[in-house]
């Protein structure tokens, strides 16, 4: 393996780590549940993706790379599902997002029509 591949891999992992850090800072700085979810999604898209790309470059072309790619694919499919479940749980236990009145009205309307759909 050429040393330039190692260099590129290091750069990828470094970028990923920076994004994980920014995601962590976002988790602390943002103000309510829904905003903090955006900070978390920074971690599992760019942070994880970049770190995994770097690791794939490190390991070269073999089975480990394939496994890393499969893990990355699974995370990219499951993390939005988990985020959505979290958002639903927050919404239905009555957490009010920190938004303006127009948005709040829109949200109330959605909640009402959702309850109606469940009631059917």
């Amino acid at each position, binding site marked *: 393996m050429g040393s330039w591949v190692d260099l590129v891999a290091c750069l990828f992992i470094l970028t990923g780590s920076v994004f994980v850090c920014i995601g962590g800072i976002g988790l602390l700085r943002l103000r309510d549940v829904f905003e903090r979810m*955006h900070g978390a999604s920074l971690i599992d898209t760019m942070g994880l993706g970049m770190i995994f790309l770097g690791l794939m470059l490190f390991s070269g072309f073999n*089975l480990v790379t394939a496994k890393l790619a499969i893990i990355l694919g699974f995370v990219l499919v499951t993390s939005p599902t988990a985020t959505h479940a979290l958002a639903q749980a927050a919404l239905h236990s009555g957490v009010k997002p920190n*938004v303006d009145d127009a948005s709040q009205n*829109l949200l109330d309307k959605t909640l009402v029509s959702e309850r109606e759909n469940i009631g059917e």
Partner: protein
Amino acid sequence: MLRLFSLFFVLSLFWLLLSGIFSVLILILGINSIILCVFIARRMAIVDKEGHPIHLTYLIGLSYFPWLLKEIVKSNIEVAQAILKPSLPISPRIIHVPAGQNEELGQVIFANSITLTPGTVSIAHEPGRITVHALLNSTAKVLERGEMNARVCLLEGDTLPSFNGSEK
């Protein structure tokens, strides 16, 4: 029937990639469990367009996913900038996004793509409409332009909605 064979093929590939051991015993064990899985999946009647959407592989891999990756990187950088600025220039709000997909699979792909893109989280879903919590003005605008909706519709083979792409 063709779908069963493709499920068999995909599972075999998965087994070989994960195990990486090519001794006869392991291969026989592998093929037995694959056949068992295909059989159970067939009994449960989940090997259909939704359960095993192999027909989407080509379109998703070559056109949709690269575009989605580009969008993810773009909004990642926007959200990261917003978080790091001392003034915290965010404008959280709720928007309704029309979802023009006919099938549930398409709507699932659309809602998951929205959530995967940082700055937008889909929080509720009704037929034809998704409620989205957006963190920034820019990320909300990208969704309101409807390009993602149109692209997921294309996955289903629809020739639907023209989107307002002039703001690119």
